[in-house]
């Protein structure tokens, strides 16, 4: 497993909604090795405040040497990142964690909610590269409203897979939850559901998939200090009553291995 720390230069800044941004970095070493579902740790300040790095999923790998993150401004670190300018350099290390294991044997159903959409684009690309056919594949994207989903729609549609949308307020696509769409879809037993999004959505996915009896991989979050298994800070209870570590054992897990609070 290769990991690198690089000083990555920002090559593009996109503000997709009021609070959502997409940054492209020239980060050739990391770009060369990262897999869907893996993440990177980014230092957001030059000083000591905020002190710790922030974890972000790899959203896309562009060409040979660029990686993208897609993030929401929620606090001090992401606010600093939101002010990034082309040419600024950030210390990034990664790729970290275990990503999605793409099941090439049956249909793929990618379900993303809110910022959970971030890792699915790289996953979809790899999915389409690895699989012979993806006629029965499905992407379900959810968000609070149109603004949160629309800017990314074309990026997903370009792969030719069916994309469905759910928004809380119905301003785009179906009014309701991504899980509603999943429930209403034809899901064959050889399918794999890949999910990323808010905890409640993932718990819902896990439940549906268990009932229907299909495999479900979810990418979960946790507070992190190191991102690489050194601090043991990112623990999360597993089904067996002990702790797993999101950065090392995840962030992608088989949903059935985790403990879900609904």
């Amino acid at each position: 497993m290769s990991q690198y720390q690089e000083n990555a230069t920002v090559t593009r800044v996109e503000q997709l909604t009021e609070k959502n941004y997409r940054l492209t970095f020239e980060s050739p070493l990391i770009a060369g090795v990262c897999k869907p579902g893996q993440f990177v740790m980014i230092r957001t300040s030059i000083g000591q405040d905020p002190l710790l790095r922030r974890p972000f999923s790899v959203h896309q790998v562009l060409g040979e040497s660029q990686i993208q993150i897609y993030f929401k401004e929620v606090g001090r670190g992401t606010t600093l990142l939101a002010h990034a300018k082309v040419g600024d350099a950030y210390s990034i290390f990664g790729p970290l964690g275990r990503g999605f294991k793409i099941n090439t044997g049956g249909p793929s159903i990618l379900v993303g909610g809110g910022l959970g959409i971030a890792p699915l684009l790289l996953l979809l690309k790899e999915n389409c590269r690895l699989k012979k056919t993806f006629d029965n594949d499905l992407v379900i994207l959810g968000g609070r409203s149109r603004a949160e989903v629309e800017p990314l729609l074309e990026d997903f549609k370009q792969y030719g897979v069916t994309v469905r949308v759910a928004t809380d307020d119905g301003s785009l696509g179906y009014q309701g939850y991504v899980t509603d769409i999943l429930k209403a879809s034809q899901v064959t037993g050889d399918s794999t559901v890949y999910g990323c999004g808010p905890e409640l959505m993932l718990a819902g996915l896990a439940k549906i998939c268990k009932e229907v009896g299909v495999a479900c991989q979810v990418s979960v979050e946790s507070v992190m200090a190191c991102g690489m298994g050194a601090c043991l800070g990112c623990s999360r209870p597993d089904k067996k009553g002990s702790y797993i570590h999101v950065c090392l054992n995840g962030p992608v897990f088989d949903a059935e291995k985790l403990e879900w609070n609904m």
Partner: protein
Amino acid sequence: MEYVKSSGDSFADMQVNIGSLQLKNPVMTASGTFGYAREFENLMNLQRLGAVIVKGISLNPRPGNPPPRIVETSCGMLNAIGLQNVGVDRFIKEKMNYLAGLNVPVIVNILGDSIAEYEEITSRLQGVPGVAGIEVNISCPNVKKGGVAFGTDPKMAAAVTAAVKGKSTVPVMVKLSPNVSDIATIALAVEDAGADSVSLINTLIGMAVDLKTRRPALANIIGGLSGPAIKPVALRMVYEVAKKVSIPIIGVGGIETAEDALEFMLAGATAVQIGTANFVNPRASEDVVDGLAAYVVKEKLSSIRSMIGQLNLA
């Protein structure tokens, strides 16, 4: 001699001695912040380290605390990992092999809730290839004494030290708690009890509150404060202890750069440990080695040892 990357073909005398333990340079990694070293193998050159101190080991495996276990604070972080570890036997079986292969002295940080437990872990570590020293974490609660931390009472601190020394064939470093009125007294007590060196400081006890949920930010309510925020407290304690004890002192607390490390050495530390900085910069410990070597060359020091305790008070 340490090769100086940044200054051409120079070499710097970086060796320090922690009692009978010879280190090729004064830079160690602090317990609990460097996993079992392997986690960092892709991101730095582990061979460059003076020593590796591993995550605290108890007699039996400990699951640790429920999440959230960490929270960031101003220039620092709180952790309440709850001393999660695989226990001494699995540690020896699963982790020591790799560590021994590094050719870097491995110091095993140990913890217990009774003196007997400290003794037993120490015994089991004897003769294990690669184990070059033991660091005794005395910030743990003494279950028999109503949960008062060993490290806050000179007598209990001395008792643990003597017990571990009694079972150990390798040098024993005692790691002091900063949550005390008078750290020099504790340091003297463990020195008298036979400690080969003292490391300080462990984390300050702190707390954070999440206003949104109106709950403590850590499931454990309180946690240990580390990072640059605590550096002034650590430096002061190293300075105070250095005035009192004659065994080597290892400085820990908020060290991020070679400059920080040099400040601790001036205050009286023979070596340093890099903790939280490993999270911010996984190459921090190697960067400190580089920086110290460059300083020795730039300042034309006979050796890095010539900095120890050389704070100018005139």
